[in-house]
């Protein structure tokens, strides 16, 4: 019998028979289901249609978030949020209300554990793969059924091994690594597949960075992105008071992969995704001198405490350029408090930043710094499709929080290695 990939192990442990192989269609038990204010109203409509199905939702494992537009800028979104809030409250489900943070950040802080399987009504539900939980995004109908039945169906994906050699140089981060991966895969290079990252550079990467990798695997079409659970995962869980939930999980040495992509992290430069597609990626050297009007540091991709420390170090005793709007949106209340405690927000405020409440912010394009016509925004988020930030006449470049900070200081896309 051949060994198992991470996807096969994590899915297999949620099936009745206990073991699966790529290509099989299986029914799996789900550990967590979640939704939010953007897709929640449609989900609730489907839940109401299914009111006689199943034996009741698991009150400890069904989570509703209000995170996409907080605080709500218009009455219509307020009404959507009220729908979600009322549904969660009246059914006794977990409500993570406005201000508590982005669903993927909070799932990774408080809920997802190695070995878990979770599904949410958001494409970035793959984020928890960074701590070796199988996460994947689905639509409202699938999640309504998963919430009602406590299970869903999955085709066990083929896995692509992302073998990351070497080590990330100073000033080059997990974000640069995933952008480089996307430039190789394109936006459909991993459709239906599991992208599994391993190798010496991953061994050295904290879970904070691994979450960034997993988060953007969906930009290549992947069903999920996974990293093993090791002692760094244990340390991460300890940071959130959940050390007892740790278990070691790794792919078997003789697991079967559909293909393998090798990247030498040591050779990597900071990467930038040019407007239009997250796979439209070039080294930062090819983007320098692009004038930037707004810088956004936030999103479920890149606002972990490590990111914030890096950004604060860059801004220490430096100011943002006068003509740049610098917007920092912590991804959760917990992170916000940690930044306060470490003096990070003080540094950012002194540098000229606007700090907005925890949530999706301008990555969702409904609140928190929508750019003007013809403006260029440099963002630490995950998508730069036309109109994503709320204005189809603006252009969005993507990069690491460090590259974003460097752009805010000079007013142009800049190699952050000058500053870190």
């Amino acid at each position, binding site marked *: 019998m051949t060994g198992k990939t991470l996807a096969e192990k994590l899915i297999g442990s949620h099936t009745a028979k206990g073991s699966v192989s790529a290509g099989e*269609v299986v*029914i799996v038990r789900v550990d967590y289901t979640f939704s939010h204010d*953007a*897709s929640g*109203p*449609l989900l609730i409509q*489907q839940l109401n*249609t*299914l009111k006689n*199905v199943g034996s009741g939702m698991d009150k400890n494992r069904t989570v509703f978030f209000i995170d996409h537009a907080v605080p709500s800028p*218009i009455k*219509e*979104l307020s*009404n*959507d949020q009220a*729908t979600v809030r009322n549904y969660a409250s009246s059914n006794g489900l977990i409500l993570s209300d406005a201000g508590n943070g982005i669903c993927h950040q909070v799932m990774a802080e408080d809920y997802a554990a190695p070995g878990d399987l979770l599904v*949410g*009504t*958001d*494409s970035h*539900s793959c984020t928890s793969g960074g701590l070796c939980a199988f996460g994947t*995004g*689905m*639509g*409202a*109908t*699938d999640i*309504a*059924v998963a919430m*009602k*039945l406590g*299970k*869903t*169906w999955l*085709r066990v994906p083929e896995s692509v091994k992302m073998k990351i050699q070497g080590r990330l140089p100073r000033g080059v981060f997990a974000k640069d690594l995933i952008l480089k991966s996307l430039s190789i895969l394109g*936006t*459909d290079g991993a*459709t*239906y597949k599991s992208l599994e990252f391993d190798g010496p550079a991953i061994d050295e990467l904290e879970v904070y960075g691994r979450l960034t990798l997993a988060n953007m695997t969906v930009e290549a*079409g992947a*069903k999920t992105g996974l990293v093993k659970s090791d002692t760094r995962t244990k340390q991460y869980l300890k940071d959130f008071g959940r050390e007892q939930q740790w278990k070691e999980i790794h792919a078997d040495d003789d697991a079967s992969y559909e293909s393998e992509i090798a990247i030498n992290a040591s050779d990597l430069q900071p990467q930038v995704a040019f407007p239009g597609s997250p796979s439209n990626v070039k080294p930062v050297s090819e983007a320098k001198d692009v004038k930037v009007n707004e810088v956004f540091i936030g999103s479920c991709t890149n606002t972990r405490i490590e990111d914030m420390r890096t950004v604060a170090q860059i801004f220490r005793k430096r100011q943002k350029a006068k003509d740049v709007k610098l917007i920092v949106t912590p991804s959760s209340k917990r992170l916000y408090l940690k930044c306060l405690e470490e003096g990070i927000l003080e540094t950012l405020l002194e540098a000229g930043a606007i700090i907005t409440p925890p949530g999706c912010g301008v990555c969702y394009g409904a609140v928190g710094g929508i750019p003007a016509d013809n403006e260029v925004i440099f963002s630490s988020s995950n*998508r730069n*499709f*036309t*109109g994503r930030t709320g204005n*189809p006449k603006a252009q969005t470049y993507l990069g690491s929080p460090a590259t974003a900070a460097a752009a805010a200081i000079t007013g142009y896309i800049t190699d952050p290695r000058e500053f870190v």
Partner: protein
Amino acid sequence: MSLRSNLPELAKHTLEDARKEFPSRVGKGDFVVAGKNFGMGSSREHAPIVIKMCGVTAVLAQSFARIFYRNAINIGLPAIVCDTTAIDEGDELELHLSDGILDNLTRKTKIRFPAMSSTMDAILSEGGLIAYVEKHGDLVFS
């Protein structure tokens, strides 16, 4: 409610970024004919729902993004993976879903496409996942 949650209003903007006149020209029995990776990105089920609300019979593409594909089948909108290069705008098409054949009546050609997985087929033939679960009370594939 927001525009996103107001599906009849949202449907008036279907695919307008790709083709501004799409919502006003599309009608019952039309097909959406696309290239690669149709539906890339978000998990929002609103995307296939508004396409269906416009009267579209099926979406034909060379490939689909995973979540869009699953969502389309779940709401009972056939999403067919086939060679769309031999279809021009305005061609008259006839879909024979269970035979895996798309007749291009204008060009007098037949496009064959592979059967969808038995799971997807089971959901689609019940009219979508809600209808499937209401009928069976459970997920009971294979």
